[in-house]
């Protein structure tokens, strides 16, 4: 009843005076309105711009015009610094500064070594106020150092709930295991979310006479050990046109691989692999699924020969700059299938590719179908000097529907995390790249998880160990030998962490 009266009061208010999108969204969230209800009310309130689709942002806040100070945003914890991404960010910042003449927003762009830069800035007493966009992995690396401000109290005060965001992103925004499973703390406001799907070269499939992979994420026949592997074999070709398993197949002279840029960690999780169990405080590298998963990832390279190893990637990608070899090989038509993040659709992986490519579901492992979910958040630095002003700026970028849509899709190429903007990615991709079906990525959300980036004790040290061990296994060491050693070493790091640290209540 109370909520009903608040709603009535609000409707009468908005009939008599203009209301900004920000005020609208904050109040709608406070009242727990559904998306259709909120959209209907927005229309009823006479806002001519359909939130989430067109128009300039209106960064009005309750304190519009009264805010004073300088906010520095560090950009470098992931995407955000590509030349094409910068103008939208600058325009949004300018819009906020025009609305709030006392505020200066500066972008500190750090294309590489951003983590070191953040460390030295904080140590030197010149911390940035906001880090945005920041992927969960980067966030997790700094959790132990208590770098991030828990946004929970300010969000609660201003009536901002993670319920406003797509459920996948809301859960991820809470850096699992640290702020608590009861969702008590918020490490950052979501500003962009990506998941992964399989991209395939249509021409290579047709040439090999292989049925295209399904776009249906529930297709049980599309499995890592089944159709996926069969297809990858048929699409891997040596200089004489032979496939792996054919007599005389030249494993050293493969000119086209069935699969590439296919993350070993995805296979690891698909087989039931896990990194850490919060309940028992134990590393999980000796689980049968963990061992079988990384072994299968290695087998794709060494046994089945359908995926290039490190040196083969370097060879296939000759001509590309360092780190872009697989992208180069894909564009050169030497990889039939790749794991494609939605963040790469508008990058050179997806645009201006000289052949037709389509999206499909990721293949399922024996334990689950797994796709990565990469969440970018805007996080406030605890050492920052003006949390309140930084919070107002962050809210503008993350909660104002128009600003959020422009930042997430037009700048980062991401799915906007706000529920009210959930269609922006699909409509945007369809308009920008008509040949690509963006719905495949959206449909993959239920299979997507950010657990590879979620913090756990001794996060950086254990991840280093994991990387090295996985390298060894892909290099030929048996997982059954390497993983128990990894389990022991990782558990020692975790136990050491618990000797000197305690988890927050």
């Amino acid at each position, binding site marked *: 009843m109370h909520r009903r009266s608040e709603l009535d009061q609000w409707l009468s208010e908005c009939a008599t005076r203009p209301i900004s999108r920000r005020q609208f969204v904050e109040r709608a969230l406070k009242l727990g309105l559904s998306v259709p209800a909120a959209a209907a009310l927005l229309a009823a309130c006479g806002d001519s711009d359909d939130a989430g689709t067109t128009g300039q942002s209106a960064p009005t806040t309750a304190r519009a015009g009264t805010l004073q100070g300088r906010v520095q945003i560090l950009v470098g914890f992931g995407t955000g610094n590509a030349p094409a991404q910068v103008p939208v960010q600058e325009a949004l910042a300018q819009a906020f500064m025009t609305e709030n003449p006392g505020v200066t927003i500066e972008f500190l762009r750090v294309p590489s070594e951003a*983590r070191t830069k953040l460390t030295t800035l904080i140590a030197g007493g010149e911390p940035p106020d906001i880090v945005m966009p920041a992927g969960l992995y980067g966030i997790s*690396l700094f959790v132990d*150092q*208590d770098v991030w401000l828990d946004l929970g109290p300010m969000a609660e005060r201003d009536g901002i709930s993670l319920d406003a965001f797509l459920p996948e992103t809301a859960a991820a925004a809470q850096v699992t295991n640290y702020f608590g499973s009861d969702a008590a703390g918020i490490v950052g406001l979501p500003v962009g979310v990506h998941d992964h799907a399989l991209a395939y070269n249509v021409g290579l499939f047709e040439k090999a006479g292989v049925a295209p992979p399904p776009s249906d994420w529930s297709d049980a026949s599309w499995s890592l050990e089944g159709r996926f592997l069969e297809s990858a074999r048929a699409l891997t070709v040596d200089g004489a046109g032979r496939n792996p398993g054919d007599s005389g197949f030249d494993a050293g002279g493969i000119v086209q691989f069935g699969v590439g840029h296919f993350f070993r960690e995805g296979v690891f999780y698909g087989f039931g692999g896990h990194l850490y169990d919060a309940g028992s405080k134990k590393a999980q590298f000796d689980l049968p699924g963990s061992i079988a998963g990384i072994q299968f990832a290695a087998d794709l390279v060494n046994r089945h020969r359908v995926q290039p190893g490190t*040196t083969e990637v370097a060879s296939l990608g*000759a001509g590309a700059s360092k780190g872009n070899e697989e992208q180069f090989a894909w564009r050169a038509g030497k990889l039939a299938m790749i794991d494609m993040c939605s963040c790469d659709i508008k990058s050179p992986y997806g645009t201006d590719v000289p052949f037709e490519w389509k999206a499909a579901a990721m293949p399922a492992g024996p334990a689950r179908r797994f796709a990565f979910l990469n969440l970018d958040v805007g996080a406030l630095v605890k050492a920052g000097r003006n949390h309140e002003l930084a919070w107002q700026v962050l809210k503008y970028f993350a909660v104002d529907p128009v600003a959020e849509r422009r930042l997430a899709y037009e700048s980062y190429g991401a799915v906007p995390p706000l529920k009210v903007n959930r269609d922006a990615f699909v409509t945007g991709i369809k308009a920008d790249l008509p040949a690509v079906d963006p719905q495949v990525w959206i449909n993959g959300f239920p299979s997507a998880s950010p657990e590879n980036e979620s913090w756990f004790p001794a996060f*950086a040290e254990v991840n*280093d160990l994991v990387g*090295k061990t996985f390298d060894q296994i892909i290099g030929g060491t048996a997982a059954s030998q390497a993983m128990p050693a990894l389990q022991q070493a990782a558990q020692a790091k975790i136990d050491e962490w618990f000797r000197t640290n305690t988890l927050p209540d």
Partner: protein
Amino acid sequence: MTLRGRERGVAYLFLSPWALGFLAFTAGPMVVSLVLSFTDYQVLDPGSTTWVGTGNYRRALDDPVLAHSLRVTLLYAALAVPADLVLGLVLALVLNARARGMALFRTAVFLPVMIAGAAGGSVAVALLWLWIFQPRFGLLNHLLSLVGLPPQLWVYSTRLVVPSLALMSLWGVGRSMLIYLAALQRLPTDVLWAAQLDGAGPWRRFARVTLPLISPALFFNLVLDLIYALQTFTQAYVVTDGGPGDSSLFYMLYLYRNAFTYFDMGYASALAWLLFALTLALTVLVFRSARSWVFYEGSPAGR
């Protein structure tokens, strides 16, 4: 004030910018890092710093990864230092010849140093060498194929990665060449003529006259090369990031990871001081040995 006093004052005045810079940016941080090496200083949470005494140093003695990184670094030094000393000397001897256009060749040999810096460790050069090492299309494997040798994996091989990086360090050989060349051009010609008149052949003149006379330059290059080799960072960081596996995890790279990846600045400071002690010990050894093989003109007994 006397003239001598005024001169001294002016000297200190002109020295003061360097001295202040040294105190603020070298000596000061060194003292601070020494203090930090006895703490568990967390760079992002300095308030929680506690005194751990010699704990970081004891931990280093028991750190297998550190021992591995030290082995990698010493192997690299054992390969890179002699290679630079020998190749630099050979090039200097060749470029010391009196021939038309020699200045051009000397410039060409020294030019890479201008790009790489004295220690041969610039990012641009590291990326260039990544291409030279490229297994299928790289220059090195192409050269091997010309003489009928099989291609190698170079920096992608756990076995060859350190020798490959030592090979890469020769990009900066122009620095030692230049120092040798300066020494060769200051050789007293009367001594060489006297040796020739006494019937000494070219090899004997080189071994018995030239080499002892340029031994101070050799000594100088040896000390510098040793210090640079122990501080190798950029090549490993850019080209291999310590890999494959940990096979090129140099001491400095491990130190950097402790400081900026694990945020364990206290331990990293201790590692820095241990490296300083090791470098100092090796340099002292080289200086001690110099008494028996470095010839300084005019010194008592010729040595």
